[in-house]
């Protein structure tokens, strides 16, 4: 990557990365806010590991890994939700069960398919700079489906993730909405893995929400700020990758983490400065 061009998004591959990245920056926090409210911030990570087994299966069977990862992730997400809702095992144990089984199965399937290669590394760590137009169409389609569904169902979904017992007494379809949230989380993981990678996908769901909840005063406001932070982190991460020749997926997540750090410090410092001003 060359830094001789002043504007990072003048070349085709950077524009493709920007389009796909912005989609992830928007739909990942849009679903992440419900996971954070439900105290399941790490479920995206767990499902990502199950999706890794799907990538392994796709490479072994010579099928496009996105489809096999989607199938594995959806089944894994529904499995975690089933175990959690029936209280067969504690929520974190249910996650761990799928988390470790998924990555173990992935390792075995990839070893059967010839071992680690560039293709596997791309899905593990993400690589937006090489994303193809056909992949962008898949990302936009899946991301669009997630965003539209979450917007349409934002109120009942908010009720369920905020107060499950009350929602049940009010006759809301709690089990159905929980399953839908699990399936859409799986779809989001797979749609984002080509851009940020299986190992970092949960960060794009959670970190923008973590920053937003420090400054927003409503659920709706938190969602709006989180989407802006998510999209902004993508632009900042891709720009940093262009300027300093660093891994773009890691740069995007570090940008999101930096926003959280800055907002946290500013929030702590602001009241202190105001107090000093009052006393001064």
């Amino acid at each position, binding site marked *: 990557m060359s830094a001789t061009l002043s504007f990072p998004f003048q070349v085709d591959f950077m524009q493709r990365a920007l389009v796909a990245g912005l989609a992830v920056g928007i739909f990942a926090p849009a679903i992440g806010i419900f996971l954070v409210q439900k105290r399941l911030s790490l479920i995206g990570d767990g499902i990502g590991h199950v999706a890794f087994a799907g990538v392994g299966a796709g490479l072994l069977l010579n099928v496009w890994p996105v489809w096999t990862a989607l199938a594995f992730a959806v089944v894994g997400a529904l499995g975690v939700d089933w175990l959690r809702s029936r209280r067969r095992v504690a929520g974190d144990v249910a996650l761990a069960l799928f988390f470790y089984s998924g990555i173990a199965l992935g390792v075995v399937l990839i070893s059967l398919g010839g071992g680690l290669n560039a293709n596997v590394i791309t899905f593990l760590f993400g690589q937006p700079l090489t994303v193809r137009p056909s992949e962008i169409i898949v990302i936009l389609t899946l991301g669009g489906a997630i965003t539209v569904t979450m917007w349409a169902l934002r109120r009942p979904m908010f009720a369920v993730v*905020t107060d499950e017992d009350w929602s049940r007494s009010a006759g809301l379809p709690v089990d159905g909405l929980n399953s839908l949230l699990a399936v859409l989380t799986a779809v989001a993981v797979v749609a984002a893995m080509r851009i940020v990678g299986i190992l970092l996908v949960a960060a794009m769901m959670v970190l923008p929400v973590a920053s937003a909840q420090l400054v927003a005063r409503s659920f709706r406001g938190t969602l709006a700020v989180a989407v802006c932070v998510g999209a902004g982190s993508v632009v900042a991460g891709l720009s940093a990758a262009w300027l300093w020749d660093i891994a773009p997926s890691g740069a995007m997540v570090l940008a999101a983490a930096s926003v959280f750090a800055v907002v946290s410090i500013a929030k702590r410092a602001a009241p202190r400065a105001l107090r000093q001003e009052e006393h001064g």
Partner: protein
Amino acid sequence: MASERARPALLEARDVRFGYDGEPVLQDVSLRVAGGEFVALVGPNGSGKSTLLRILLGALKPERGTVRLFGADPDDVDERWRLGYVPQRPTLASEVPATVEEIVVSGRLSRRGWWRPLGASDRTAVMHAIESVGLADLAKRPVNTLSGGQQQRAFIARAFASEPELLVLDEPVAGVDAESQRRFSDSLTHLIREHDAGVLLVSHELSAVAAIVDRVIVLKGRVLFDGTPGDLVHEGVSLGIHPEDLPLWLEGLR
């Protein structure tokens, strides 16, 4: 708010029996709540109040006896908006900031149809519910920045938002400030008078609502008393004049 026995029951339990691991918790419990009636269910700790409430709402099945909610088995009631429920909870454990209005809107979903967008009449009902509990000025404030009493009023407004025919409240004024208790009493009066709703309040502290309770049911495994607050005076319990009477009397029943 005079109780009228002849009116159809919104909620009725007959000869309900229930136990855990063979240990009886409830024996031959009967009660009814009609429209426009305010019934308080009281009892000492371990008297079976919570178990009875779960049975009345359909979360538990009685071993014997019947429960009818709006004339049907609780599981068969499709129009759940007819029931407003305020669970026992000190505060909202919300990770993400959520305003009073956002919480109360949830209460409208079952009335509107959860898959349908909210209309103008729904927004009016939500604001009306918020105003009725005295939180209009705090509608845009995050719930987790409010006091325990204000939060409880937000949950009561959520139950009001569906304009329920029956309101069931589980220990709603436990640890709540005096201002919130007064607001709470006013809003229940409004619901009963304006909407002819029935109210079942589970508590061991009735001083906040002493003036508006029609009937008190005292539970300790079985129904020990079912009558008006006036009848309770004969047992040496005054709800309004000496608020400490009831908790002391219930303690004596343990």
